[in-house]
């Protein structure tokens, strides 16, 4: 037993980080010395709590942002009554939902009905522990972070299926079943797209993947050239982005909810706080997916010019010398990191909202077809390309890199043209009688 504890402890020490030096210096300035053995789970728990609070705030803000963005897209004003610019609207809605009656009908499976939202909600928030918001604000720096992320996020589907079943409502049941089918279809291209990144980076540690992107490629001075989305993995990024929108059940892939067909799908029967839980979890998942996209493909918490601006321009040191607190430079750097991270993430969230405002919903058969017939072959091609590149180390040489890019463009372009035939065939057929 003691051995097991010590093994666990070693594992934890290897994976859970300690507080950084600048924090100790900051605390030292106000006369508090952090304990030396403040290492194990305590620090991770503190970090996770901080991240969860930040995440909750981000989610609450996102709900408002979505309403504002959709209003903007449809030339409306959006919520503007509660608080300045309607900022407190979501809080007001939350309070309203909190006080609403929690209705359960007689024939519902009470246990599962209550368990469903929790099962949906928990993984969506636990994955926040794996996302490096800054180099330090990362609860667990697991070597297998990417793997655990997808393992956890796929649990939430079980929550949807359970609540669909327990609702004793046919729409909910159909919604739950659709959700299961959709999750099975879209997790494959999602993970395959990440597999290409992992294959190239040689690690599943999300922080290491971010660091790799900051190293630069082909000797270009700008950081964003080496972002995985720009030069190496545009295909991976597109597949990942489409699949991640499907994974968080948003338009055009919101079949489990499908308001016009299934009324509201799996959450038709839910009221009050249980409904709010679903609502929160959906946005939390969207936020996590956006953050993960940034980590994998957009250089994470680093600036687009490579490195950190405050570090390059020496702002952190200057500020520290001005204020005269040791460790303040570290704090400035961390603040810049989280700013970049949030900015990039919110750009992706905005794009997701934009898509929601523009596109209609797919049908289930088209949804499956799009995944199995288009995305999965495309991601396999992508992995093949990355493998070739990895084997010959193409990226170390610009000439080879260009040649590889040409192959990539030709291959992928050809495939896309081939697949687009499938989608435009009906149109051509339609205009046939007009042409003859």
């Amino acid at each position, binding site marked *: 037993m003691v051995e097991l504890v010590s093994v666990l402890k070693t594992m934890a020490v290897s994976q859970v980080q300690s507080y950084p030096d600048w924090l100790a210096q900051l605390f030292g300035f106000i006369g508090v010395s952090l304990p030396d053995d403040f290492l194990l789970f305590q620090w991770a728990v503190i970090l996770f709590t901080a991240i969860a609070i930040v995440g909750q705030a981000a989610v609450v803000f996102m709900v408002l942002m979505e309403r504002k963005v959709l209003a903007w897209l*449809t030339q409306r004003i959006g919520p503007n009554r509660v608080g300045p610019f309607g900022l407190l609207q979501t809080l007001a809605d939350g309070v309203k939902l909190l006080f609403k009656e929690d209705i359960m009908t007689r024939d519902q499976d009470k246990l599962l009905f209550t368990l469903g939202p929790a099962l949906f909600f928990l993984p969506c928030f636990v994955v926040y522990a794996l996302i490096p918001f800054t180099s330090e604000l990362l609860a667990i720096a697991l070597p297998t972070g990417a793997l655990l992320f997808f393992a956890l996020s796929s649990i939430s589907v079980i929550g949807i299926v359970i609540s669909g079943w327990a609702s004793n409502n046919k729409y909910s049941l*159909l919604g739950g079943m659709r959700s299961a089918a959709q999750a099975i279809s879209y997790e494959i291209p999602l993970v395959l797209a990440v597999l290409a990144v992992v294959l190239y980076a040689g690690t599943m540690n999300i922080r290491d993947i971010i660091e790799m992107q900051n190293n630069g490629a082909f000797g270009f001075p700008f950081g964003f050239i080496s972002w995985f989305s720009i030069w190496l993995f545009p295909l991976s990024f597109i597949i990942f982005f489409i699949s991640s929108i499907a994974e968080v059940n948003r338009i055009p892939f919101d079949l489990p909810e499908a308001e*016009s067909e299934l009324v509201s799908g799996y959450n038709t029967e839910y009221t009050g706080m249980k409904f709010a839980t679903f609502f929160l979890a959906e946005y939390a998942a969207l936020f996590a997916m956006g953050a993960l996209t940034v980590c994998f493909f957009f250089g994470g918490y680093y600036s687009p010019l490579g490195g950190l601006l405050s570090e390059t321009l020496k702002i952190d040191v200057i500020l520290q010398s001005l204020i005269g607190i040791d460790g303040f430079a570290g704090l400035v750097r961390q603040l810049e990191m989280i700013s970049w991270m949030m900015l990039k993430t919110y750009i992706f969230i905005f794009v997701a909202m934009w898509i929601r*405002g523009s596109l209609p*919903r797919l049908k289930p058969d088209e949804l499956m077809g799009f995944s199995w017939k288009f995305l999965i072959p495309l991601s396999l091609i992508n992995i093949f390309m990355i493998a070739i590149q990895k084997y010959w180390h193409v990226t170390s040489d610009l000439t080879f890199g260009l040649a590889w890019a040409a192959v990539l463009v030709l291959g992928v372009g050809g495939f896309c043209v081939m697949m687009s035939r499938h989608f435009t065939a009906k*149109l051509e057929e339609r205009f046939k009688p007009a042409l003859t």
Partner: protein
Amino acid sequence: MTATDVTTPQIQIPGVSVEQDTDTEDLVVNIGPQHPSTHGVLRLITTLNGEVVKEMEAVIGYLHRSKEKMAEGVSYFQYQPTIDRVEYLSSFYDHYAYVTAVEKIAGLKVPKRVEYIRMITMELNRITSHLLWFGTFLLDLGATSPFFYAFRDREEIFKIFEDITGARMMYNYYRFGGLNNDITPGWLDKVRYFCDWFPDRLDEYEAIVNKNPIVMDRTIGLGLIDRELCMKYGVTGPNIRAAGVPMDLRKTNPYCCYDEIEFDVPVGERGDVYDRYIVRMKEMRESLRIIRQAIDKIPGGDAAEVEKLRQAVAAKEEAAKAKAKETGEKPEPVPPINPDFEFKGQKINLMTYKPPAGEAYTTVESPRGLLGCYMISDGTPKAARVKWRGASFSNLAALPELMIGQLYPDLMAIFGSLDVIMPEVDR
């Protein structure tokens, strides 16, 4: 739903369908009466096998407000406000059918200016109706934004309607042999401005939707309607025109002044959901074309000019009277203004108005199709019978046959494309 036969062998033999091996149950989903996509209160008892519709039965009557019985209880004029509620999205058409029925039975002559104003308002109303259809149809497909765009543009037309009728939705504007009031000065310019402003909007919508791969995938080849099916169920309007049958009463049996106007009848090729969409979008453009011509041709032109003519006649009458006073003779008769320029025909007491005994079946090409009003008058102040033949009623009857074998999500696309409005079905 549950597979009860657990002893089924797991290995599937190629060529043997799953249904033979596994024991499945059908799922009966009771769609409606309250459902976001049933456009009112329609109940569809649907038997689903997985997500494939096996059987469907439409249950209607949830919105039955006995409009036909009401007509037998009140005078002809008192019934008019309730007509707006028979079909609230394009109530000018119902009014036109009703008012024409009375006019035909009574033989009331309608000034030409009235016919033109009726034509302009009806065509504008067609645009509002098609716009609402455009928004809700795409909402059924899952796109939210077009709904708001469509409502924004309807607002412009509502403003135009509000100018002359005072109402945004329940107009109650037509009267037996005329209109409630003349158009306001400058109204025609507003309509003309709208006609110039709106095509850009339509271009925008078509740019968003026409070539959208998701829309095309969801609509092309779906819900095929051919001529036989239209005859079988009495499907009319853009639905039958999308099937390639140019059945448009405006063209074939011209009423109002449609025979003086040039316009085309857009027809589709295959009769699928996409064609119905295209036909409706084209019809909006044709409506604009009709309105433009009607504005140019309207007798008397703008209301201000007609008012000037009226004042001139009044001034002449005054002068003639003054002259007659001086000379002590009878005043000379002053020629009145062209009767075609008036906004009402014969002077009648509306509240107690009753046509002589007779019957009429008037048909109008409403945005949803053939709208009929069958009126029997027995000479009493109340109608003996008023029967509404709503286009939606027959269009909806075709839905169950269209849905057999289709996927459940296609229900929304097909039902949405038929453009059914429930108050017209149930009356």
